[in-house]
């Protein structure tokens, strides 16, 4: 007991840099710089099809990061993010077509709209846990889809609507603007998650991931933290929805609210590695490679995606990134905190 009491005496102040900082901090920075230069300059050296693939890569990456933050950190298994993709898409229609705003300006507006609509749905959803939460997110997405489908006069019903005002842009200008908007969105998603995880909320989140009841016991406001994450993920999905349909132009409810948005994103995060920032990045790359390999196989490719997800969950639940880091971890994004020295007293390998 006397030892414990001495612990309570003056503590060393929290260090300014609580993150595990080791020798190879330069590697991630150099890597990141090189990737950024390549991506920013891509429209100048890449051809149109590469640019379009890269844009698609950006929006899958943004969706995957947002979903991973929800499922991997906050324990909210959603299979209903397509609700916000669709809401983003229809925000584009309403703002750009009905109100005459610049279509690219609608991307942040779509994020705001998605966030506003996510709030009431969080009141319903947060009454449910686990697998029930998952299916309920889907029911909400279906409800929104059917409501849009029934709205023939305003939103075009099942046939949807076309964003004609995009015709004011030259095709190349539209593709370049879309590309940079996509790049910005992906960066916001990746670094938004990164800085969120390094903030106080992030510490709370990682505590919730490890043990929710334990986190609540030490005073973490789990509900508030989860709501922040849910709204953030909705905003990202909403912005992504607007961006996707700036490229695709025709907005139909069955496509915009398709469960496939959720399915691909879950697949990406599961193969990459759930609960890490690197996982969804690696997962998106692997998804594009696999999709390319399986091109033209239609039903077989979806079947194989399903099988891979099952096998990964059984034999490598932490994904490929988890397998790569099993022995010698090389984190590119440092979000794990270093244990303060005073907790290491008995070398319990905590």
């Amino acid at each position, binding site marked *: 007991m006397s030892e414990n009491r001495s612990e309570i005496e003056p503590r060393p102040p929290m260090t300014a840099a609580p993150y595990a900082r080791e020798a190879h901090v330069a590697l991630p920075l150099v890597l990141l710089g090189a990737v950024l230069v390549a991506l920013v300059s891509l429209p100048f050296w890449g051809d149109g099809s590469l640019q379009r693939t890269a844009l698609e890569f950006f929006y899958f990456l943004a969706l995957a990061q947002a979903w991973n933050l929800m*499922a991997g950190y906050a324990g909210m298994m959603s299979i209903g993010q397509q609700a916000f993709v669709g809401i983003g898409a229809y925000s584009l229609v309403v703002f750009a077509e009905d109100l005459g705003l610049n279509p690219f300006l609608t991307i942040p507006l779509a994020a705001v709209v998605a966030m506003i609509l996510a709030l009431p749905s969080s009141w319903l959803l947060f009454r449910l846990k686990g697998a029930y939460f998952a299916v309920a997110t889907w029911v*909400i997405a*279906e409800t929104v889809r059917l409501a849009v489908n029934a709205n023939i006069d305003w939103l075009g019903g099942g046939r949807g609507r076309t964003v004609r005002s995009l015709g004011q842009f030259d095709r190349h200008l539209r593709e370049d603007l879309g590309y940079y908007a996509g790049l910005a969105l992906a960066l916001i998603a990746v670094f938004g998650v990164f800085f969120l995880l390094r903030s106080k909320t992030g510490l709370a989140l990682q505590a919730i991931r490890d043990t929710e009841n334990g986190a609540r016991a030490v005073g973490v406001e789990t509900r508030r933290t989860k709501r922040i994450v849910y709204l953030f993920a909705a905003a990202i999905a909403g912005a992504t929805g607007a961006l996707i349909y700036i490229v695709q132009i025709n907005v139909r409810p069955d496509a915009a609210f398709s469960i496939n948005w959720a399915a691909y994103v879950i697949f990406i995060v599961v193969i990459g590695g759930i609960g890490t920032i690197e996982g969804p990045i690696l997962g998106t790359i692997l998804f594009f490679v696999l999709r390319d390999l399986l091109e033209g196989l239609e*039903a077989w490719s979806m079947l194989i995606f399903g099988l891979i997800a099952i096998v990964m969950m*059984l034999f490598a639940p932490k994904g490929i990134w988890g397998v790569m880091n099993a022995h010698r971890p090389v984190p590119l994004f440092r979000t794990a905190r270093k244990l303060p020295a005073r907790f290491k007293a008995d070398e319990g390998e905590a």
Partner: protein
Amino acid sequence: MIAISTALNGILLGGLYALYGLGLSLTFGIMRTVNLAHGDVIVLATYLSLLTTQILGFTPLMSLVVLVPVMFCIGYGLQRLVLNRTLKDGMMPAVIITFGLSFVIQNGLLLGFSADRQVLRQGAVETMGVTLAPGLTLGLFPILTLGVLLVLIFALQAFMGRTLLGRAFRATSDDPNTAELMGIDGRKIYGLAMGLAFAIIAVTGVIMGIRSNFSPFDGPARLIFAFEVIIIGGMGSIYGVLAGGLILGLAQTIGGAISPTYFQLAGHLATLGILAVRPSGLFPETIEKG
């Protein structure tokens, strides 16, 4: 008269929905996880019945003799060989695995049977009607469906309440660790529960196939109906399934009577409404553990 007919048809439709929910309620009550491939497994059972009728020349209802044991084994195998491996990691692996399975079943059926809509032919019973009053005729088969549902519900309730195995099921549901200490093998119980759920699904699938045509991608909608039945009725409650099915069926038929586009929407809104006022459903039995 239209109002009475709408209400009665809603109740009969609810019988089918309660059947969808019954298997899901059983597995949720015991394993506390949702099989996201539930709807696809129903459709799989329908296709297996179709296959049996084509190969052996059985009628769809006769095919149940083969189908019920086969589906029981598939469910038992799925739980013991796949899902039981992930029990200690919480509910997320099971959710993702069954979500993956859903895509495997849908696309496997698409490859095996094409996207054409099919139907199970049982014969005259499909189209027979019962006239209660002039202008009020109900389908015979939907009435039979409701009968099958009631028989299954009473049988399941009796099994859970009166038999030793049923008691083991309930014990495992309440507290798997303590049940284990009493000599109950939880993994085996989970396997049997999934097998039983799949056997019920076999019956559900055949009835669905006789009542309406079907295609490989009909599963997800069935899962959502099944889930809504449980949300409305209350988690883990067998009688709640009956209430949930009837309310969902009524909501849909009433919505559909107002405008055909409101058919499904009304069901979803009823579910979300119940969720807002009574988050654990009307007759909850299992308590969600933190």
